[in-house]
């Protein structure tokens, strides 16, 4: 039996660490949760298979560079090309970050500790952001390392690679705040998955339709704004303005100027406001 040696209750007089420790611990805990680490094997299937799919273009790209000395696809367009996979990752994993604590009312156990709502939400957003960033930036980096090792003719596209990694970070913040805000509106995981994927599909479907409708009716410059409904094209438009890369859309061009990046910032702010309102309400229950 386990209770042969009853040494009685022992008090704890060791160190009690501060806020950054708890927030970091919560962030790492949530990040592990996104990838299903420390969870049953079935929780790992989805995130790791999607991460593996993200590597396919990298493998193809390195192979063609090595064999026929040609680049297929570019760094700046990687996120747009792979957007469906990134979106599925967001839809399937964002609810696992927020839903269980809301559904099983675990929040009071955090809030009765030194953790505040802001820190809690901040740690969750940070975890999802890091996960999405890794999902996009790791393949980009592997591709770039491959590029350097193959030693293609001409200077290496370092600028484009760094721009793409920067935009991967921007995309990760945008997707994680909006995705978590959508997922946190319902305590049910399934509904969270459905709502995130629905919003993505609508935005993807609507963008070319709006563009075409406006273009056909003669509002050519207005049509360009239609592309910005989709978050991946929105961030791509910001990349075009910030880093001078080419636009990765089927047709037409983006509206120029700082508008896309301002829209990104406004969306992030709005999503954070929704998240904090949602959690303030949950906390007072």
């Amino acid at each position, binding site marked *: *039996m*386990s*209770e042969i040696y009853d040494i*009685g*209750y*022992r*008090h*704890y007089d*060791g*160190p*009690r*660490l*501060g806020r950054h*420790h*708890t927030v970091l*611990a*919560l962030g790492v*805990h949530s990040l592990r949760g996104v990838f299903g680490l*420390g*969870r*049953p094997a079935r929780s790992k299937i989805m995130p790791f298979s999607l991460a593996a799919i993200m590597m396919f273009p990298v493998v193809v790209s390195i192979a063609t560079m090595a064999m026929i000395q040609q680049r297929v696809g570019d760094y700046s367009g990687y996120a747009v090309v792979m957007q469906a996979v990134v979106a599925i990752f967001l839809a399937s994993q964002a609810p696992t970050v927020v839903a*269980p*604590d809301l559904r*099983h*009312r*675990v929040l*009071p*156990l*955090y*809030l*009765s*500790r*030194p*953790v*505040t709502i802001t820190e809690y939400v901040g740690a969750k957003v940070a975890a999802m952001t890091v996960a999405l960033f890794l999902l996009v930036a790791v393949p980009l980096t592997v591709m770039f390392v491959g590029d350097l090792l193959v030693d293609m003719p001409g200077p290496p596209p370092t600028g484009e690679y760094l721009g793409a990694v920067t935009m991967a970070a921007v995309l990760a913040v945008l997707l994680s705040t909006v995705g978590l805000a959508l997922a946190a509106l319902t305590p049910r995981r399934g509904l969270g998955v459905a709502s995130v994927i629905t919003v993505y599909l609508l935005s993807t479907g609507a963008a070319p339709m709006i563009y075409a409708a406006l273009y056909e009716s003669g509002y050519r410059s207005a049509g360009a704004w239609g592309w910005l409904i989709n978050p991946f094209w929105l961030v791509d438009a910001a990349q075009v303005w910030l880093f001078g890369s080419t636009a990765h859309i089927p047709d037409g061009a983006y509206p120029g100027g700082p508008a896309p990046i301002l829209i990104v910032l406004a969306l992030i702010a709005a999503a954070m406001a929704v998240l904090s309102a949602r959690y303030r309400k949950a*906390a*007072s229950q």
Partner: protein
Amino acid sequence: MHILAIEGLTKRFPTVTALDRLTVTVGPGVTGLVGANGAGKSTLIKILLGLLPVSEGRAAVLGLDAFTQSAEIRRLVGYMPEHECLPPDVSATELVVHLARMSGLPRTAARERAADVLRHVGLAEERYRPIGGYSTGMKQRVKLAQAIVHDPKLIFLDEPTNGLDPRGRDEMLTLIRRIGTEFGISVLVTSHLLGELERVCDHVIVIDSGRLLRSSAITEFTQATETITVEVEEGADALAGRLAELGQTVTPHGRMLLVKVRGPETYDAVRDATADLDLCLIRLEQGRNRIEDVFRGEAAHV
């Protein structure tokens, strides 16, 4: 030092007043907070944790102001909510380790403390299995374990015996008593059942509709109402008559007689009366009146 000092605390929700100018102090030890459902017990705990704003009044927990120093307070207290609050897909060990870290314990210390407290609350091998498969009693133990894992100075237990069967209730109450005495952690425990609190509490506070009805030490209740229960095989009426003649206060209670203890002479009177009447005494028991009875009596007098 007062563990809790509450002064004129008022909390109004849009439709109800949950706390109405509540003023009360609590000392170390195990304190029971009793009231019907909706009396304001859970609201009071949430306010003391700094989770709910108040409308008026002041409160101090462990000498710290509940409104300006709530982060400090939450470092030193533990909380066991009334409702279910456990994620089903993690094990008790994982959850308690994680929550210990949320209280600021380093990783290794969190592991050791979690193993310790889970053993103290009586969870053995099952602590490695997902919580989803636990019985209500085991879940309540996990909730209690997470409340004490960071070795707090004070814990708030909101209806810890809710949903437990009589045996589980007994075990939970014994555990609470041990936490208050052996572990040296002050406890504020709520219940809507007075009877179960008298076993574990040093002090009882009764609130109703957010107002203080009574706050007193358990000994006050029991001293004031000490009785002995006498049971004889037959002839209880004769015995009651004889005891009354001897100047004792006797109340019949079914087959038994409750005799108010005036002093050692009461025991002598019972002995002499049964001997004189040649009755067969089958029970002579020191009965403490239940707190519930005291309140029932008080309510009857109002």
